């Protein structure tokens, strides 16, 4: 050490002040830091005291949980009638699927959800997962459609409720995502033909509402088919959803591609990697993780947009609820029914949102300094 450094006594590291940890300091800092903050806290508290008890009274204490129509009518506005859910849950969940066969959509949906959850874990991102998808999707259709293995055939017009929602959104996103990556890459292609095609696709699809796409898939498309040819309406609607969400996703992915520094592609090129090797190993792993929140945003949107298929007489969760509320005895309790369906949507959307945050942190290992 030089004489100068020795003369200048170094400051040893000290522990941070201790009064910043614990409940009381936290409350002080976050809820009562100054008079405005304190006022806000008190207003919120007052609102809670005023409105929370009546809400609980309605939703829990006075509520009728039994499927007892008379009891529901008797309680009126004083309590919720969860009886409508207890009475109609099979219709809401499975739509017009034959009652005694409803174990099939139940099993099919459970398999699908299980696979989706499994696919979320990065440790499972192996080759066998693709095989598992093929197996589960096949099982899903066999169970739903029947006609083999001694299962009674059930035509697609009677599919409905939750299995329909999960099918339309899962297959929709699983196909839309790879398509969107191709379209996004195509929009940046050096070949003008491909570029124009991709731009046209995105702008055309984005320019019309999903309802129009579904209408066209459902009513107009058959008019253009040669006589004798039919494609199941469910397939047409599914393709419509895929094309629609792929257009939106493509723009999200393109945003990620644009954020990638040019030097990354040059480095890959200088190492002799081909275009597709560069895309797979360098471009996508980096650009996709940049747009995880936006991708998940589109996913959540698509999940809820599947409810629009009601417009072409397919009874997804919301459509099946309308069927259930067609019963004049229970029509009065539509609010409780809507809340039940909303809760199902919320569980899935919230899970997607939390997963998005988790995977973002998980994927960002190494891309930040320690």
């Amino acid at each position, binding site marked *: 050490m030089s004489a100068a450094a020795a003369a200048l006594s170094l400051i040893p590291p000290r522990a941070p002040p201790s009064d910043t940890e614990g409940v009381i300091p936290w409350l002080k800092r976050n809820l009562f830091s100054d008079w405005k903050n304190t006022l806000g806290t008190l207003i919120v508290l007052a609102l809670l005291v005023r409105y929370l008890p009546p809400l609980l009274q309605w939703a829990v204490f006075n509520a009728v949980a039994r499927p007892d129509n008379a009891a529901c009518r008797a309680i009126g506005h004083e309590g919720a009638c969860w009886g409508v859910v207890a009475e109609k849950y099979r219709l809401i969940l499975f739509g017009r699927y034959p009652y005694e066969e409803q174990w099939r959509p139940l099993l099919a949906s459970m398999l699908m959800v299980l696979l989706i959850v499994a696919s979320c874990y990065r440790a499972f991102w192996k080759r066998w997962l693709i095989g598992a998808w093929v197996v589960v999707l096949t099982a899903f259709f066999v169970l739903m459609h029947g006609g083999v293995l001694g299962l009674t055939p059930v035509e697609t017009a009677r599919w409905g409720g939750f299995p329909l929602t999960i099918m339309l959104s899962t297959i929709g996103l699983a196909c839309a995502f790879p398509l969107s990556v191709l379209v996004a890459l195509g929009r940046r292609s050096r070949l003008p033909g491909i570029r124009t095609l991709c731009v046209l696709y995105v702008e055309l699809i984005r320019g019309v509402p999903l309802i129009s796409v579904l209408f066209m898939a459902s009513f107009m498309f058959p008019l253009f088919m040669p006589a004798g040819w039919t494609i199941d309406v469910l397939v047409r609607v599914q393709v419509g959803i895929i094309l629609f969400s792929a257009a939106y996703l493509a723009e999200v992915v393109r945003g990620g591609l644009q954020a990638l520094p040019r030097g990354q592609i040059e480095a890959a090129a200088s190492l002799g990697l081909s275009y597709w*090797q560069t895309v797979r*190993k360098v471009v996508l792993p980096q650009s996709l993780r940049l747009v995880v929140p936006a991708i998940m945003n589109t996913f959540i949107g698509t999940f809820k947009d599947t409810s629009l298929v009601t417009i072409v007489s397919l009874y997804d969760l919301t459509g099946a609820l309308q069927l259930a509320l067609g019963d004049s005895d229970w029509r009065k309790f539509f609010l409780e029914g809507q809340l039940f369906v909303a809760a199902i949507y919320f569980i899935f959307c919230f899970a997607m949102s939390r997963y998005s945050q988790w995977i973002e942190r998980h994927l960002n290992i190494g891309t930040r300094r320690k």
Partner: protein
Amino acid sequence: MSASPSRAPAPSTEPIIEFVKVNKWYGQFHVLRDIDLSVAKGERIVICGPSGSGKSTLIRCINRLEEHQQGTLKVAGVELTDDLKAIEAIRKEVGMVFQQFNLFPHLTVLQNLTLAPMWVGKVPKKEADERAMQQLKRVKIAEQASKYPLQLSGGQQQRVAIARALCLTPKIMLFDEPTSALDPEMIKEVLDVMIELANMGITMICVTHEMGFARSVADRVIFMDEGQIIEQNTPTEFFSHPKSERTKNFLSKILAH
């Protein structure tokens, strides 16, 4: 920087890179003008010149990161055209080190090094790992193999970038201002690795303003301005007796401090 004690054997005369009347434009801007340049196998060349003089563009033409529009350019016996196969073949022979390192931030140091050998060279993983570790040892950074690039200092990252380029055992190494983005105290560790490479006999073309490096390792120093090669000579002659006014002017500016 001291001159390296042992100079590599004199380069052979067989040309490994040949520019004949090469021209390039960016839109209306004439960035390379009638470039004639022949580089012998094993030759070590330093290119300097003011910014915008076309020196980076020149070396980026060698591995076709930029394409020239007129003239012929042959690298390792292959003429560079639109033929993708030829371009990929040449890129295996030419390693490149960039000013901004351009390491892949989502891969560990080791994965950065093994990516091209495994996918381009079809080398099995185990062998690719071994080779990569050898190169990391050469640039004295083997202990960082499992870290991610952004966890390393700039000098360390640039050394990893050099090791990555070497993993394909290229015949030619291109350096595009490899020390310009580094903090002063890290420049030496990178230059030391480059001097070691120079002494191994690999063909090197280096765009740099490190004149000490040019003096100690270059066989030839090239001065470019406005898209042209203004002057080229051995380092001794180049620095002691620059011929053109522009060269003198440039040298007086960069050697002043």
